[in-house]
């Protein structure tokens, strides 16, 4: 019966083939245009803002200790790069370390929570408390109780960053398909097998979503930590450079340091998006759309 159906339908297909082709070509062109616009539009906005900024500075003759023009900022960045690079590296290191700790702490706690309802019930409220307490408010306490500068800064950055990893992963571990869960029960999977073969893979997209939020927060945490804790001697981070430049009214250098912070944030976002794509593009819906 399938064979008799195939005959006429194939015939109509050949007849309408050119139409389908034109349609297809149109869709392809549209897609190509959209892909170009995706980077062209933001670039145009960026250029326009830079020009507007430089124009305003030039026309109104704004002194550079109030608002330096973008070209002066760039120039400062290049000239001071020698001294800024070290601070940049410090900030990047703290951010990455805090993010790694957030992954271990948030992910580990989430797994612990799914293994025992009791532990989850006992601890989760305190995780929320940690999350909602303004970090600035407890900074003086941290200053008293933790001796090492690097530990203080890491601790603050970690507190700021770990919660999205925890809550997303915990949600992901619980949202595995219920039929697959039944299947695991029927096949008598052990607790560990269930975690390894079902819960961890199901939670991966959620975890990665949390990670992308945590990436930005870790950077914010690293900057805030340095603002509140001061610098640790020679290994001062970008936040310290911003403060220091503001005391000296070296506004172009403030802007240069700020540009580095922003670039770091963008880089973290891009790297984490790339990792997400790498891990999910073969199977997960969220990553599929990008391919097309």
């Amino acid at each position, binding site marked *: *019966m*399938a064979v008799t159906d195939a005959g006429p339908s194939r015939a109509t297909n050949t007849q309408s083939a050119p139409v389908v082709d034109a349609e297809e070509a149109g869709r392809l062109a549209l897609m190509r245009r959209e892909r170009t616009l995706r980077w062209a539009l933001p670039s145009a906005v960026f250029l326009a803002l830079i020009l507007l900024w430089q124009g305003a500075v030039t026309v109104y003759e704004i002194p550079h200790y109030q608002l330096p023009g973008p070209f002066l900022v760039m120039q400062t960045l290049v000239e001071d790069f020698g001294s800024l690079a070290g601070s940049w590296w410090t900030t990047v290191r703290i951010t990455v370390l805090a993010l790694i700790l957030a992954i271990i702490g948030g992910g580990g706690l989430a797994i612990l929570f799914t293994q025992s309802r009791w532990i989850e019930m006992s601890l989760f409220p305190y995780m929320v408390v940690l999350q909602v307490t303004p970090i600035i408010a407890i900074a003086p306490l941290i200053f008293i109780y933790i001796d090492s500068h690097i530990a203080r800064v890491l601790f603050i950055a970690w507190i700021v960053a770990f919660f999205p990893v925890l809550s997303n992963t915990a949600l992901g571990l619980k949202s595995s*398909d219920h*039929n*697959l869960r*039944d*299947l*695991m*029960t*029927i*096949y*008598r*999977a052990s607790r560990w*097998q269930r975690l390894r*073969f*079902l819960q961890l*893979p199901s939670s*991966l997209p959620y975890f990665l979503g949390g990670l992308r939020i945590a990436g930005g927060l870790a950077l914010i945490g690293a900057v805030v930590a340095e603002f509140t804790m001061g610098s640790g001697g020679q290994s001062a981070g970008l936040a310290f450079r911003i403060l220091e430049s503001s005391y000296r009214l070296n506004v172009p250098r403030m802007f240069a340091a700020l540009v580095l912070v922003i670039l770091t944030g963008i880089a973290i976002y891009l790297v984490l998006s790339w990792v997400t794509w790498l891990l999910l593009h*073969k*199977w*997960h*819906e969220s990553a*599929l759309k990008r391919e097309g």
Partner: protein
Amino acid sequence: MADGANLPAADFAAGTPRARAARPVILSLDHVDKVFGTSVVALRDMALEVRQGDFISLLGPSGCGKSTALRLISGLMQPTRGRVRWEDPQARDTLGVVFQEPTLMPWATVAENVWLPLRLRGKSRAQVMPDIAEALAMVGLTGFENAYPRELSGGMKMRVSIARALVTHPRLILMDEPFAALDEITRFKLNNDLLAMREKLDCTVIFVTHSVFESVFLSDRIVIMAARPGRVIRELAVDAPYPRDAAFRTSTEYVAHCRAASEALAEAMQGVAHEG
């Protein structure tokens, strides 16, 4: 395939099913009740004897407890009263299940999905490669080992799901409306293939369906159920011999069985209406 060797497939192939009573009982439901909460009676006093080689369809309207019966058999829940008695422990250990949805792991390839039941028993992939290949060949998916579920059509996903159920060489397979979500042509094709697979594997099947036609085509016993409370109303035998192929669907015998089953279903339901 060594598992089921004690019952020769030739019995079905020759079209002379051995007298049912002579075949060993795999499991039985013993006056089983299942009550949810305090008042939802999903099953009342269900008795069912499953013998080796049976192809049993549970046929009935939505909510009559068909899925509940399968979940009791698979051990996902316990009966409120009565027992599920297993006479063949090996059938329980190798039990295969197929749900209405394909229920595949989207992050795993076809081969990895089929590997799962054996993997959970600690078998490495290399160790069971031949079993995976055999199960995939059985459902006609050789060559799709490395595809991901999203790359497959609904019918193909269902085939993977069946291959996963077959890979343990089960003596008993439970299927809960496996083809309900598929179009009719695909469903017919899968029905034919399912019977062909069973000829080869010689396993017992309990198959839940809404469709009179499907139940007549596939099974040799149809258990008709009614809802509120869920219970067995009648049992029909479809004594047409296996193998059955597409030609069986157009035979007068098939049509007669369908009419009988529809009438039994309608009659039973009517009787229920008067009772209530």
